[in-house]
């Protein structure tokens, strides 16, 4: 169906850090309609292993292309790293209704854990007039230098934190965040669950000003399988269609393992 699956072609796969690749795909249908925070389920055509699309946040678009930032962790991403330009792909998406909307005149503090930077970079690309902002990027350490440079190139003025102190401030991304948020401030965060949980705890009083992107195992991406369900104050929600960005306030954090 037109609104779900689209043909795409890999144009470029480039290593930007030892574990991260930038993938540029030709896929006008997705490029034209994608909103920041949305994602695609990427799959190869002609093979049934890997079987299902893998969710990746859209990191940038141009007229007909979509850029992803992919950390190489498992079966599909290891394969993706080896694929030459011209390889045929299926893109399911853009998916997600919990996307990032143009903020009025708020100050946005972007908080990225490693490749969690992807949807935030797309937000910066999409809202160029966004003047008041900060960008905090947390990485494990030096191995991520290439990725840090990549993000810096896309958006000047970032604060870098690393777990081992080998890049920027020592500590996780939270170390670089203010104790409390101003009334006109919002956090948009994407990264590993422990980081998001810690943040939800830190801003527990202001959790209505914190948006987080959740990473759940997904099979369908269209709300059908109920594989990606989380508990919220409004009952069960599907991350793929109701998210992936949620207000930290809505989420039942105790239920997230």
């Amino acid at each position, binding site marked *: *169906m037109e609104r779900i699956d689209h043909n795409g072609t890999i144009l470029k796969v480039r290593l930007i850090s030892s574990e991260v690749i930038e993938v540029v795909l030709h896929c006008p249908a997705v490029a034209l309609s994608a909103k920041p925070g949305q994602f695609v389920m990427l799959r190869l055509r002609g093979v*049934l292993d890997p079987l299902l699309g893998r969710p990746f946040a859209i990191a940038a678009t141009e007229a007909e292309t979509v850029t992803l930032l992919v950390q190489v962790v498992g079966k599909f991403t290891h394969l993706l790293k080896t694929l030459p330009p011209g390889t045929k792909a299926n893109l399911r998406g853009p998916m997600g209704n919990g996307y990032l909307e143009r903020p009025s005149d708020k100050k946005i503090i972007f908080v990225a854990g490693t490749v969690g930077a992807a949807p935030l970079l797309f937000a910066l690309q999409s809202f160029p007039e966004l003047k008041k902002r900060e960008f905090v990027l947390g990485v494990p350490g030096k191995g991520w230098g290439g990725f840090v440079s990549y993000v810096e190139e896309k958006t000047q003025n970032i604060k870098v934190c690393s777990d081992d102190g080998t890049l920027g401030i020592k500590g996780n991304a939270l170390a670089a965040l203010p104790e409390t948020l101003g009334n006109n401030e919002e956090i948009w965060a994407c990264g590993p669950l422990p980081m998001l949980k810690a943040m939800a705890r830190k801003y527990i009083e202001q959790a209505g000003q914190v948006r987080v992107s959740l990473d759940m*195992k997904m099979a369908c*991406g269209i709300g*059908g399988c109920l594989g990606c369900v989380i508990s919220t104050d409004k009952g069960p929600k599907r991350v793929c269609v109701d998210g992936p960005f949620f207000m930290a306030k809505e989420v039942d954090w105790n239920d997230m393992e």
Partner: protein
Amino acid sequence: MTWSRLSDTLVGIPLKTPVIIASGVWPYDADLWDKNNLDGVGAICTKAVSNKSRRGNTGVRVWETSCGLLNSIGLQNTGVHDFLQNALPVIRKGGMPFFVNVVMESIEETQETLKALAEHDDIIKGVELNISCPNVDGDGMAWGVSPESTAQAVAASRSVWQGSLLVKLTPQCHDPYGVALAAEASGADGLVVANTWLGMAIDINQCRPVFNRTFAGFSGPAVFPLALRLVWQVCEATSLPVIGCGGVSTWQDALSMILAGASAVELGTAMFVHSDMPRSICKGLDAYLEGHKIDHIRELRGRAQARKGVF
């Protein structure tokens, strides 16, 4: 398209094509139930409907394996009354033939559910009874594992539901012939063969099963050869229409099911691979019929059985 070579009546319901979307994979979005968007789809099975709402399982719910998918959703749904109030109007508006997938719970609960559905039998023509669920009043095994409990479940449902009744078997039955005959004798109009296979996965980092309930339902292209074998066995046993379900993801798979004796196929996991799968399958079937100068797919039903070898 009209798919004149493929359209037929199944358990009294006219279907444009023999390709049905299986239960548990399709959300209730209006555009996804609009028949104008569903070329190639013959009918849709709803997500499981139980009497009361169910929260489903905690922890990881889906896990991919080689050409397969493990799921442990746990029948999450909002219950039959919410279904009637919120889902049914969307379904009705879309105009697609459909089957309500009903969870076999206790006999009383199931009958209540079916009675509630029966009040809308102007809209709801068919039910798919899922007997892969545990018989909590009995020994806790799935209703569908033995011919006896299958008969009990089907007879109880039949007594309160006058519409078309599909019974969806579990592959975890020890005697597919016996179960099929029991369902037939107790009033099933057709059999869906089958639900998911019992599998598991282990999280090597946490050194524990991936799923909180240890075992999970296994589906997808990986299981196709097993499902085809089961369809073959059931078709040998029964003269009821059989719907092949399990791993179908190419037109060749669909055709194989039909040659084994199936009247239609259901697609579950394949819908996650590509949403246009039903149309591709219909195109493939239609081209095959055209190439072999066969007027209607029904002429191929069970044709492989006629030339079967000896086991």
